[in-house]
């Protein structure tokens, strides 16, 4: 009895220590160091038009990428679980590619595709559409790296609920769309919400792929994460910390929102 209690306490202690060392520690230090040069510097960094623009741009990219990946994730999930088609296994494996691939590689491949002499780059250039070093490429890069999350949450849930409820709805006269809206979507809603939360967090934090395709044009294609690096490179550590803190707060807010949205039976 005593041994078991001890073991349990030491397990808890280890879990807590691990979390502190890996997660809470660095975030706490950043929070601490942010105010080294006083609140004034934090304020001036955050109200700097370049910083504000960077945050607006990050939010814009997120606002475009998240809905697209949500619709895509649900559609692909339905296709993989409910339909049979050739090369299904390949599609299933492909969804995980963004998780396996370094974002830098994603950025480079977009660069090659849409850049001068690229397969698509020349066509868009002839038609006067700017992809690279502009919003479109940054959105594409962000969509790519945050693509798997909704699909990966939705697929196991769709498998678990099975298709009997959907068949029952069909026999009761519901069309495909009515069945999706009234039966399937409510049944997978927590998986979708969780997927959206993860996608949002990933979009807000994206750095590698966007760093390559953005061209880092001050006041134009600098996102929040790129601005952090910019301040860091210019030895303005407190400035970098200030922006980092806001990014961290945004991520925490998203996670808290999820906890409140999630019903009790779905936790654990």
């Amino acid at each position, binding site marked *: 009895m005593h041994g078991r209690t001890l073991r349990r306490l030491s397990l808890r202690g280890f879990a807590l220590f691990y979390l502190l060392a890996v997660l809470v520690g660095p975030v706490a230090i950043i929070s601490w160091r942010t105010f080294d040069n006083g609140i004034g510097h934090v304020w001036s960094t955050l109200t700097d038009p370049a910083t504000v623009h960077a945050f607006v741009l990050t939010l814009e990219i997120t606002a475009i990428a998240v809905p697209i990946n949500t619709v895509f994730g649900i559609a692909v999930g339905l296709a993989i679980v409910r339909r049979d088609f050739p090369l299904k296994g390949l599609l299933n494996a492909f969804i995980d590619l963004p998780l396996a691939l370094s974002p830098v590689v994603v950025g480079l491949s977009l660069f090659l595709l849409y850049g001068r002499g690229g397969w698509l780059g020349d066509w868009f250039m002839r038609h006067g559409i700017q992809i690279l070093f502009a919003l479109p490429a940054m959105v594409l890069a962000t969509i790519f790296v945050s693509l798997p999350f909704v699909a990966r949450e939705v697929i196991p849930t769709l498998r678990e609920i099975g298709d*009997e*409820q959907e*068949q*029952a709805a*069909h026999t*009761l*006269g519901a069309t495909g769309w009515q069945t999706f809206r009234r039966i399937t979507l409510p049944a997978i809603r927590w998986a979708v919400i969780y997927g959206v939360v993860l996608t949002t967090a990933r979009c807000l934090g994206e750095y590698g792929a966007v760093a390559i395709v953005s061209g880092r044009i001050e006041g134009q294609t600098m996102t929040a994460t790129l601005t952090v690096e910019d301040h860091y490179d210019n030895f303005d550590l407190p400035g970098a910390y200030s922006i980092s803190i806001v990014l961290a707060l945004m991520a925490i807010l998203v996670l808290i929102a999820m906890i409140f949205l999630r019903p009790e039976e779905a936790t654990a």
Partner: protein
Amino acid sequence: MSIEIRNVGKRFGDFVALDDVTLEVETGSLTALLGPSGSGKSTLLRIVAGLERPDAGSVALDGEDVTARAPQARGIGFVFQHYAAFKHMTVRKNVAFGLEIRRRPKAEVAERVDELLHLVQLHGLADRYPAQLSGGQRQRMALARALAVEPSVLLLDEPFGALDARVRKELRVWLRRLHDEQDVTTVIVTHDQEEAMDVADRIALIHEGRIQQIGEPRELYDAPANDFVMTFFGPVVRTEGGLVRPHDLELSLDERPGASEAMVARVVHLGFEVRVDLLDGNGRAFSTQLTRDEEAELELERGQIVFVSPRNGSVGTPGLGVGEELVQ
């Protein structure tokens, strides 16, 4: 509404689920599709519902070919073995689903749903969620949901298969009453021959994707078309004359013409019935059933030699050769 199934075939890969099945179901009847698991009976039901497409053949409802028609447009109600309850909806919402899809006026929906909930005795549980119901209650809800849209054909796929024996018997009686009260043609899929005989007017016995025999329950029992039909309705004993049912074997202590010798291995009292386990001359085990009185008269004991013969007028299968393997 009558159902005509013509020459229907269905394969899943190499597996032949249905092989040239033809079956007619009369308007207003209650027909059971009976067979062991994997016999193709559920596939046939799902083809009638439009949930599965046949590779060959056609399905007609009231003479109208519906083979290519979606399940939504067939005017059927379907009840699944595992209820297929809409988990995020209350009992009331589940039952109302079909009516709300059809955009019926709210008052009408509420009235019809109340009526159905009374019919299935769930009116006290209208605001519960399926997770808060027992299996039997869930299946009654599923039935009410299927009946809400007033289908002319009600299809039930092993509806009581997941319930315990007592509830199963209750619901069986109740389904029969419901069928008689509603103006509906009912087809029920089951693997339980007792359930089929209890509830159905007609039974279609299916095995390995083919219909073995169609008829009233009595016909299948009293005049089985082949060994499979015979063995499906309970245990059988192979005698020199063919297959007979254990209760159609007569025991006597005196030798008589046509009777064969056997040794009593065990006498088991099962209430009204007595089962006598026997060994024949070749050492093969078989059993007979006697009434308590018959056994009392014989005063059987273990190790005793008795003489076994089929009773006059007992049921056997035609064209049966000695030495054929049992299909059980």
